[in-house]
């Protein structure tokens, strides 16, 4: 049976601090859903998740329109939906040259939503394209520094 909470549990906080891929579901004002896979996500506290998304992705366009967000978090023995409203923090992140926008998602509801009678036993498996590892390290270091150091604009 699904368990509902209003704050992100510790195990999900730890997972989100592990540079894992998270599915971000958004919707337009015309009710068109958009799904994006993101890894620049960081829990600022148990009620706030910071996420960075391209403003050109359908999901980025939706967030700018209405902020309605649901995250699907999948990890070892973890399967949670985190729902809330995303608020603009920064139109353009300074640490990368390409367009990336920063949002703070004010968490409203967290629920377990696993497959009955089974559970995920790991994260969404991911590999960096060959030859891009150093670039990824550099970008991740700069972006996570910016994510962690930018003051929170929303009080939840």
């Amino acid at each position: 049976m699904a368990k509902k909470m209003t704050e992100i549990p510790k195990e999900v906080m730890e997972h989100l601090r592990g540079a894992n891929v998270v599915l971000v579901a958004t919707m337009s004002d015309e009710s068109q859903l958009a799904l994006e896979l993101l890894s620049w996500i960081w829990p600022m506290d148990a009620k706030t998740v910071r996420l960075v998304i391209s403003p050109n992705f359908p999901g980025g366009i939706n967030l700018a329109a209405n902020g309605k967000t649901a995250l699907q978090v999948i990890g070892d023995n973890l399967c949670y939906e985190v729902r809330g409203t995303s608020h603009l923090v920064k139109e353009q992140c300074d640490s990368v040259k390409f367009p990336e926008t920063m949002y703070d998602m004010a968490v409203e509801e967290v629920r377990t939503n696993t497959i009955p009678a089974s559970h995920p036993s790991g994260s969404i498996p991911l590999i960096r394209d060959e030859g891009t590892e150093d670039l990824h390290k550099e970008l991740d270091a700069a972006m996570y520094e910016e994510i962690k150091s930018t003051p929170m604009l929303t009080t939840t």
Partner: protein
Amino acid sequence: MKSRDSDRLSAELSDYLQSQHPFVVVTISEDGWPCAEVVSWIWARDDRTVRMVIGAQRQSVANIRANSLTALQILGAKLAYEVRGKARVIKERCESIVFPQTMVELAVDSVRENMYPANSVTGDVPVSWPESTDSHHHEWNVAIDVEMRTAASEA
């Protein structure tokens, strides 16, 4: 539109969805919010039609009854796709297993590759269950697979 965006499943994606894999179904809740759930029983009937079996009590089923707009996140080796369309219940209660499951059919409108640049998904989301239930899972998977392939499209 990226080169791999389309109004139908690619042959690669259709082939992948001939067997069951964990995926995420996203629907719209009554209060107008995206609602995500992880499901595993899926089958591509053709390049414009995907069937899935979801627990009858799950929020997704109630949402689909009220609002057909649905998106699936498919994840597999070198596969990361958003599949959107209109879903409807085609069988209220599957007959092949004891616990209540509902069969849903998605009429595909759009397929979009949605992995961010310079990264690839390398395989299925890993899923496990207690070893003692292995034979049950095998039986359920076979039974649901047959039922998805043989069910009529009419609700």
